[in-house]
């Protein structure tokens, strides 16, 4: 993505590489900041990759005699707690976005720290679940799907946490984010909502549907 270190008004792209036409470049209007557009386009595409895994899961489930097979039942308590944590974190992160729109960078930092902690707790819960389930990736076809889907989602949660930490790192410098300049904040939030929505579908497929 385009560097969010650079204020959008003086897009780095125009200055980048010290073009000979620098003098001309400064007269040109700023390069438009379309990062949010780019992210949304990317996430629309990325959601279809999860769609592919979901389709695989449903097709293999439809072809199986017993789903999940004997001995690979899923836990429900811990994942439900995890779900509550992840879904509520989407509301928490929005508080941070609301804060920065009011020029309240302290509020932004507070709510983004809380979100990051909730994300890390979710990941820790996931790791704990893996360790206690009693079956691994290769146990059977259900386990294949289970670990692939949750693992791939976990990777996205991890990236989301990294994005939030990146926003926090940059927010140390006063004036980096303000009510008029917070695209990076917004992008981290959009990505986090995406991770959350995917989890809701995943939770329904992997945990709730296996109970019926």
């Amino acid at each position, binding site marked *: 993505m385009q*560097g969010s270190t650079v204020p959008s008004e003086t897009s780095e792209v125009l200055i*980048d590489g*010290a073009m*000979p*036409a620098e003098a001309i470049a400064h007269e*040109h209007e700023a390069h438009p900041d379309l990062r949010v*557009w780019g992210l949304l*386009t*990317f996430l629309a595409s990325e959601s279809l990759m999860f769609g592919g895994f979901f389709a695989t899961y449903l097709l293999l489930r439809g072809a199986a005699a017993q789903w999940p097979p004997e001995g690979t039942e899923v836990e429900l308590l811990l994942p439900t707690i995890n779900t509550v944590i992840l879904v509520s974190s989407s509301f928490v992160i929005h508080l941070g976005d609301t804060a920065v729109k009011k020029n309240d960078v302290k509020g932004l930092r507070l709510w983004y720290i809380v979100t990051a902690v909730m994300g890390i707790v979710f990941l820790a819960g996931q790791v704990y679940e893996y360790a206690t389930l009693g079956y691994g990736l290769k146990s059977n076809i259900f386990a294949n799907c289970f670990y692939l889907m949750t693992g791939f989602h976990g990777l996205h949660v991890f990236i989301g946490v990294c994005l939030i930490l990146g926003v926090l790192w940059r927010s140390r410098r006063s004036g980096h984010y303000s009510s008029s300049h917070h695209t990076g904040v917004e992008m981290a939030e959009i990505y986090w909502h995406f991770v959350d929505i995917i989890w809701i579908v995943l939770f329904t497929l992997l945990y709730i549907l296996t109970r019926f």
Partner: protein
Amino acid sequence: MTTNAPTGAIAPNVEQPAPGAPNNWRRFFSFSTDHKVIGIQYIVTAFLFFLIGGLFAMIMRGELITPDADLVDRTVYNALFTMHGTVMLFMWTFPVLNGLANYLVPLMIGARDMAFPRLNAIAFWMVPVFGIILMSSFLVPGGPAQAGWWSYPPVSLQNPGGNLVNGQFLWLVAVALSGVSSIMGAVNIVTTIIKMRAPGMGFFRMPAFVWTVLSAQMIQLFGLPALTAGAVMLLFDLTTGTSFFDPIKGGSPVLYQHFFWFYSHPAVYVIILPVFGIFSEVFPVYARKPLFGYKVVAVSSLIITGLSAIVWVHHMFASGTPGWMRMLFMFSTMLISVPTGIKVFAWVATVWGGKLRLTTPMLFALGGLVMFVFSGITGIMLAAVPFDIHVNNTYFVVGHFHYVIYGATVMGVYAAIYHWFPKMTGRMYYEGLGKLHFALTFIGANLNFFPMHPLGLQGMPRRVASYDPEFAFWNVIASLGGFLLGMSTLPFILNMVSSWVQGKPAPDNPWRAIGLEWLVSSPPPTENFEELPNVIAEPYGYGKDEPLVSNASAMIGTELAPTPSP
């Protein structure tokens, strides 16, 4: 490009002899974020891979010139056809068309650059990286992947050497990286076209090429994730021992085929749609007539995008597909010939009665159109389930798609390279060499690929290193055609290199073409436009005598001598 010449910055000349200026060759080896540099980087890199893939093909044709497997080992032959297909699709056609889109789209829509210039550069630099990863599979024990470019399990899951890093592993990594690069490109191009059009450049004022690129890149966005998902699962099966595609443990090999073709059929439209765009740009210029039915041609690109998502099972008629599904996909596949046919009729109507100038780009476009129509006819034949099952896995299929990908796509790409060569380099190419190149390519392609049709009808299977002597006649002709095709690249390379170095300087608009890219200098200055163009007319205003933009002189800078707009 870190050094800056302050004197160059002061001079308002667009062709500064400073580093980073349009005529400085060093920038092509730098991490430039200029869409025009990246476009040319894509085209040249892809062409090098085209030569490598062509070399593989010529070794195969050398093997097939005699019925016996006597030139290379059978496993080497398997590796050659696998690498030929992979290189030609992922390292030649996609990157070269991305290069053309990169170069032309911002100029055509009146933007200074792409929406995300640095992402653009990263997407390009991944091409040599995954290219080298794929080529390095020649060095690992067991050699490159041998399962064909589609890598169906269970063939692709065989790993007799037991090495973790084997040819198939590297193939999957390279294809996955290619997918990442293509998604970056698609996000960039789609955002650019939707959000960065110049004032007055409404959707129905965009040249047809931009429409086709938009349609093609939308396919990348919805299709590539499916291929990536399939590739990830295949990689897990290959390396960790999961069983997504292993029927004994409850998996399904047919599932992989669905994933593969859900992307790789639409990928054909990713390839052919920009070529349709090239045809739509080239014919009006050299026939001096507006593109016939411009709006319908533009919209039919999007219709093709939509339909392309619901035809993939026609690659799997012989994969135990239930009857109702075969019927459904036969119907949807035949349906796609409607928007495609609309375009063909539009091009014929554009050329019809025009004042034709048979320059090299026009010859390539006409030759490409003829070969595309032929491949379209065999395509309809293959869409019919009974016929498809008869010729399934024979050379008929190989002949069909080589007419699409060589006959239409490569010819279209050549047309584009010649047509925009003066704009990209500021030099004219040599017309004589260009026409020689066209003659060799057209004759070579038909000699090479036509014999595959009778061979397929006679029942010769594809992907074999030896065959029954009764097939020898057509195979010898095809091999001669293949060698001729190999030779055909020589006048092209000679022409491109010598013209770029010492060709006649090109004027801004050598073809008297209408379009924003022809209003700026050749090559265009950094950032393309001094002032963003204000578009006031539809494209292809041939014979209408109306200006395309209201600010032609301001657009190219006041210091420059204004060139009369066409």
